[in-house]
């Protein structure tokens, strides 16, 4: 265990240069954006003089190395600066929006896995059967419908026509109030507060956007499960196991599935990371106050602090995610020595 802890720490240490690189690159990239934030934020009727005043106020009149030095100094104190588009400190904003995105993405992935993994296993055990075709049909449909279309279509059917879903007004309808913040995940916070009404209200708001995202992420997971299961089932050790007369249940889950899990987990990690960044459209359609729409708004307005904060936050998240996935590997398959690296 001690060795593993040391390995984790060394992995974290290895991530440091990556983070430093991200800090530098995100700083340079935002400055390379063609827009002029001073002109943008000076307001509608600003003249050259007031644009210049705004530039001085934003500290954009200083030299680049000076600006970078200030930024790093702030960063060292845990201050990501102030976003101009929203007028809030970036740290506060990320702390509020990241859980919103994470909650949506995790619920969507949970739903997606709950459907895609069994479906993939079933399709692999009966290749060419009707269930295999049904699986193919579902995932093709899911991946070929753009998320904003699925989202709008779901709203149209379940909110506009039938009225079953609540108003698509973000994480909670306006008549409810946020549960006291512990984790930022409304489902967890409401459960901690023992507030069933708010818990159900938050869940109801989650269903449509999570379903939209889940539909989109079904395909890679189901396809990967099917392929990995097929190759595992056709391998020598399964033949040996069958010859040894093990029960088909033991063969399927004890040997084949466990071996097939590795590529599935890898895919899951990839799907998670791109969904988190790519659910901007879902966030917009459902007025979800997530991190994706925040980043896009910031980019459009050349809001340096917010863009840098977002990139840094995502970098940290990916470092953590990769670590978790590597740990998961070594648990699934002890032959992969995480700690020996």
């Amino acid at each position: 265990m001690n060795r593993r802890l040391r390995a984790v720490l060394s992995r974290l240490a290895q991530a440091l240069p990556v983070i430093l690189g991200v800090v530098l690159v995100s700083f340079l990239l935002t400055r390379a954006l063609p827009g002029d934030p001073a002109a943008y934020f000076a307001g509608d009727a600003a003249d050259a003089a007031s644009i210049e005043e705004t530039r001085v106020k934003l500290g954009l009149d200083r030299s680049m190395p000076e600006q970078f030095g200030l930024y790093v100094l702030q960063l060292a104190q845990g201050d990501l600066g102030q976003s101009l588009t929203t007028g809030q400190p970036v740290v506060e904003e990320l702390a509020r929006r990241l859980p919103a995105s994470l909650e949506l993405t995790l619920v969507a992935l949970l739903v997606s896995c709950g459907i895609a993994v069994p479906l993939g296993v079933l399709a692999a055990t009966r290749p060419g059967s009707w269930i295999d075709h049904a699986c193919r049909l579902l995932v093709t449909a899911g991946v070929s419908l753009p998320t904003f279309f699925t989202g709008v279509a779901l709203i149209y059917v379940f909110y506009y026509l039938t009225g079953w879903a609540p108003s698509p007004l973000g994480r909670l309808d306006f008549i409810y109030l946020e549960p006291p913040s512990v984790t930022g995940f409304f489902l967890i916070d409401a459960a901690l507060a023992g507030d069933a009404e708010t818990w159900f209200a938050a869940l109801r708001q989650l269903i449509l956007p999570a379903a939209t995202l889940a539909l989109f992420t079904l395909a890679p997971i189901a396809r990967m499960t099917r392929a990995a299961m097929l190759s595992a089932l056709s391998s020598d050790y399964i033949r040996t196991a069958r010859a040894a007369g093990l029960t088909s249940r033991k063969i399927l889950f004890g040997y084949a599935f466990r071996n097939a899990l590795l590529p599935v987990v890898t895919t899951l990690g990839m799907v998670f990371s791109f969904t988190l960044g790519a659910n901007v459209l879902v966030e917009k359609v459902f007025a979800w106050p997530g991190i994706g729409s925040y980043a896009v708004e910031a980019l459009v307005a050349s809001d340096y602090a917010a863009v840098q904060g977002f990139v840094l936050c995502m970098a940290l998240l990916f470092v953590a995610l990769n670590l978790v996935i590597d740990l998961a590997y070594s648990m699934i398959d002890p032959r992969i020595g995480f700690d020996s690296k």
Partner: protein
Amino acid sequence: MGLDTSRRGFLKGGSVALGAAALPFLKFMPAQAAGDDVVVVVMGQTINSLDLHRTGTNRPSYQVAVNCYDRLVSFGTKTMPDGSLSYDYSTIVPELAQSWTVSEDGKVITFKLKPEAVFQDGSKVTAEDVKWSFDRAVSVGGFPTTQMAAGGLLRPDQFAAVDEETFTVTLDKPSKLALPDLAVPVPFVLNSKIAKQHVTDADPWAMEYVHKNTIGSGAYKVVRWDPGQQLVYERNDKWTGGPLPGAKRVVLREVPSQATRRALIERGDVQMSWNIPNKDASELDGKVEVYSTPIENAIYVVSLNYNFEPFQDPDVRKAVAYAIPYEEIFKTAAYGRGVPMWGGSGIETIDWPQPSPYVFDLDKAREHLEKSAFAGGFDVPFSIDLGQSDWMEPTALLIQEQLAKLGITSTIDKIPGANWRTASLVEKRLPLALETFGGWLNYPCYYFFWAYQEGHLFNSSNYANPEIEQLVGETLDLPVEHPDYAPKVKRMFEIAFEDLPRIPLFQPALSVAMNGATGYEYWFHRELDARKLAKG
């Protein structure tokens, strides 16, 4: 944050900020029954500050200055031909001021404040508060200072608190713009006693505090602000600026997707959808209440840059003006909402905007192009703003198609939001572009000041004409009733239509949908004025 965001306090109404009025926010009621005096409004944009004077405060946030603060004076209200309400530029009515007098030479305006006017904390509104607020507006720089300067309000020494209820503004020269400029959202009055408690050496105007707290005497106060999500106004029952609003609470939700906003208003789960696209306005009309008001002193135009060689030729400019399919643009891009600005029959009034004499006539366009030095045509990039692509894209495509028939090849260049202002207004480097400008102060000379004077921000065509320079300078401060005013303004129109740095297309409209609420009023600032809203 100074706002009460704790859930328990909000629900039980036990906190000072909320008082006993938190009741309509019952926890488990369906949205429709959320209370007879709660109006829910959705909009696509975001509020980024509660303080208009702050650097970087965006347009939608100006409404907080309107709803939560008072000015000395305001504009009256008139009923439009379609029965909707609009502010009335021609009458100035009291808000915090009870009365005012203008000195003989027109330079000193003396205001008497309402003795009963109080801030939300119950303290009296004094001339000292007005003085501090006006000093702030002219000192913080950026947009507020520019807007104050438009009315001749430049320096703190122009403002004086004579006694508790008397306040004077001294102008360097008399100007018809001064009084109306006091009725725009910028010179709002803050509670200087509270603000001064939050002043620091680095922050002499309490910008940080006012950014997150409303400390005015206005019709509402902000009781909850979740940036990026919602803003909740609660009625200030001590308001003296006008009749109390019918709505006790106004909940403003930010919903970025237009399709979602439309579903919400059609279902009636929200009572108002702010600034809906023209397409929705024409489709929703009849299903829900739709108000489309032409935006005063605003025109959507094609801007021809004088720095671009072919456009220096007057015949090329006229050829372009005759090659624009106005009618089709108005139908496709504006869905017929707004006012046509083409095919005018001569300049008879001093109304602005007014139609240009040009119509869609390709033969005439060809004739003009033949006469010019560019008879064979030329290549030109046609720039549009990605953020306004809803009307700019169809308009540009329609114009591009007709220009091609003249041999003018244009390629459409979409520029994202942050770069648009820099490219079109600051650097003024786009040869052919679409442009929109609307003046807050509703005078033709004010429009020309911003859009036709050399070097001014909205003159994206780099247009310079000595006669226009002189005429604008002469008319800007002149009263409209002055005998010289009308002839000079008509001459400006004439030159503008002859020189064509900006080819008018149409006057845009602001459209708002209502379902289950009343009291919408159009204002020149084009943001929500919730002071007359009521459910029903």
